[in-house]
């Protein structure tokens, strides 16, 4: 699968690794943003994406808030996948309730990350 993917994470290293993984292994066209504010700006500038991968814990505007803002600009049906270090089932459920298409745990294996994204987009979770 390929398409345009918006990757949002405040940690430079992680963002870089995820970008490499998604581009090289998954074949996505990745646009990165270092925070919620930046992501919203990119989208408001008119960029269109097939999927958004969003970190949960970020300074300033966190993941859930970013999702909320993005919902205003993006078509409501663009899937959003969260990346989170919180592994509790309750946290996962909370994110699903916010309208996430799926949740991927950190740390992730860069070799399987694109596969997980694909699986979520295909309708599994």
């Amino acid at each position: 699968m390929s398409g345009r993917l918006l990757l949002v994470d405040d940690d430079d290293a992680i963002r870089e690794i995820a970008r490499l993984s998604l581009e090289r292994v998954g074949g996505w066209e990745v646009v990165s943003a270092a925070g919620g504010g930046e992501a919203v700006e990119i989208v408001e500038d008119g960029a269109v994406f097939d999927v958004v991968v969003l970190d949960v814990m970020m300074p300033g505007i966190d993941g859930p808030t970013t999702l909320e803002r993005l919902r205003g600009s993006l078509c409501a049906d663009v899937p959003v996948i969260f990346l989170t270090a919180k592994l509790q089932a309750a946290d996962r459920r909370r994110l699903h309730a916010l309208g996430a298409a799926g949740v991927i745990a950190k740390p992730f294996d860069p070799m399987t990350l694109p596969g997980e994204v694909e699986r979520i987009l295909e309708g599994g979770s």
Partner: protein
Amino acid sequence: MHSPMELDDMEPVDLRNWIRSRPELAILAAFLAVYASWLALSWIPGDPQKLQILFLAPIDALVVCSTWRASRRCAETPWLRNFWLLVMLGWSAELIGDLILAVYDIVLNHPAFPSVADLFFLSFYPLLLLALTRVPSAAATRSQRLRIALDCATIVVGGGAAVWYFLLGPIVTEGGGLTFLEAAVSIAYPIGDVLLLGALALVMVRGGPEALRLPLRWVVAGLLMLISADTIYGAAQLHGTYSPGDPVDTLYVLSAAPFILAAARQRWTVRGDPRGQVQARAESSLRASRLPLLAMVVGFGVLLGTQWQDQFFPDLSLLIFALALAGLVAARQYFAQVELIQLQGRVQTIVENVAEGIVSFNEGGMIIWVNPAAEMYFGAAPGSLEGKCVDTLFDGIAWSQMAPMVGVDGAPGPVIGERLKFSGRRGDGSVFPAEIVVTEARLDGERILISIGQDVSERVRSEEALKESERRFHGIFDNAGIGIAFSAFVDGEPRIVEVNDAFARMTGYSPEELRGADFSLITHRDDLAELAEMGAAVAAGEDSIAREPRCVRKDGTILWGALTVSILREESGAPRFAIGMLADVTARKEAERIKDEFVSVVGHELRTPLTSIRGSLGLLEGGVMGELPEEAAQMIATAVSSTDRLVRLINDILDIERIDSGRAGVELAPVAAAELVEQSLQLLAPVAEEAGVAIGAEVESLTVAADSDRVVQVITNLIGNAIKFSERGATVSIGVERDRDRCVFSVRDGGRGIPADQLESIFERFSQVDASDARERGGTGLGLAIARSIVEQHGGRIWAESVEGEGTTLRFVLPLAPAEVGTADRR
């Protein structure tokens, strides 16, 4: 039914109602008016004796009708209904007898004696006897029954003397002119009369039920009139002085009237009417004793009169009668005395054994009599107090002061009947607190005063002790560091009665504001459900409930409280008082919150660099950065697996910390066991596939009470372990089955097993069967410890069974969902 009487214009309605309710009385009045006018004026032509018969039949019929109506009115009280029915039958016989006699006298014009009519007349006696024996007895004791029997015997013998003199004697001694049948029938009447007299006496002296009291008086009057008529008639017949139209005939006619009055006075009774029952206490009135006295006087009078005239009696019969009467009177006197002595003994036993001291004294202040308890209270030798002045018993008050209080000139003083506190003085001069009541009584015309009371020093002492203990506990209550609220249940809801200073201080309300309030006043809106849960727990019978609801102070700030409620119950089990103890745990809660945040931040902060490390290594290992030399690839693979282990370790440590600190509470909900197993299998399918291990599951359809995420974590953990310790190609079996009200999960592998001495310790942290396992199998050593914590949070148990070399089975039990428990065990 019409009334020939003049109606009173003023109260026509009442009179009409009265007549409608008791028509027999109206008819009786009319009949008596007609009868009286006939007696005075003889306005019907014909033989007066024969016409007398014509008056007998209708009044007999009226008795029959009215007694029938009386029996209907008390149909709910069987004995009373039977009484009236038997009286009715008696009078029916009388009516038939009179009609037959009328046929003989008027139609055949040939008076006959004895005739079929006598058969009916005589049956009146047994029927009335039977009726009188229906009346229940109030006699309680054996001696009372004996006395009643003696009274009856005296009456029968006394009455019998009269009957003997007037009737039987002459028949027996001068019966030459009579045939055997005539004599027998003649004797039968007076004998019936005497027996009836006995039964009557029985009913009169023993006291009957309230329902029959008024009617019974009229029945007695009627029967006495009948017996008198019989006696006079019999005597007149024997002496040949009887003539038709004799006044005795009028007596016969009139004797029916009381029966009609009696029947008319019978009130309605209802089922279980207490008036239809006999009072347990026999009324021992003097009036009852006068009857046998009267009978004795009559008997002796008759006998002496007989002797004076000396007509029929041999001296022997006089002697027999006199001895019989004297014997009966003596016996009755004896038993009455026995009864009296018993009663006296009972009263004396009570007076001597009561705990109250009784002192009686006269208006001069002189002690007349004291009971043993009083002598004990005052420390006096038996008999030593009588004759002394009553003020020797009191401390600090002289008779001259007491006299006006109790009253001395026959008039009661102000303290009579009042409960008084005073200081008593013992013989040795010591003083004690006492409580008395002074009453008055008359003894042989003199007014005496009776003081009844007790030494209350013991009570005063225990009251003091109680006050002391109350003071002590109140001190604890007032000065306690925790808030205490004492509530009473009103209509099932606890209302605060009293709070201590700490409680008021903690909540910011004044004690007055809290009084009457319930706990919802100080409970945070979001935690009201918790309060409701506590209420439900109280209703379910729990006596001690601890919760940590958020409270709101009066100023609106939040107070984290540790609330412990203890319930005091009534004997019925209903809650009566609640003692709520509130500790301020805001500081602890704050510390917990900070720690939570810290753990969360640490988790995040550790995972972030780990994510980069793991990601970088992953990209290198995956060849994304180009092919690596073989040795470097080997090193990178080692770094990846170590990083993975470090990640798991961090996850497990954070997990167990959360569970053990109690912050990861379980939320129990009914969930299908099969669903839990299914979820776990989905998570582990890739792992099992990679390890080449097959998984078989045999799951009963059961619903457990569980926090599904947590239980999935446990099952996943156990299956993950089982896969790790299985050879490629082996099978891991999962089972779920019911054991009474629990659900047993089992995970079995065919691995090398666990030595028996380690079956317990594997659940401890960082404990593995083989130290090398940690490295080889990639475990953290915390999985089973976490599993045990979760299972125990569910109120379950986890354990391992193993045969070394043959594999291991790990089992854990969870409670079934409440709905499931109710269903029958289907196994």
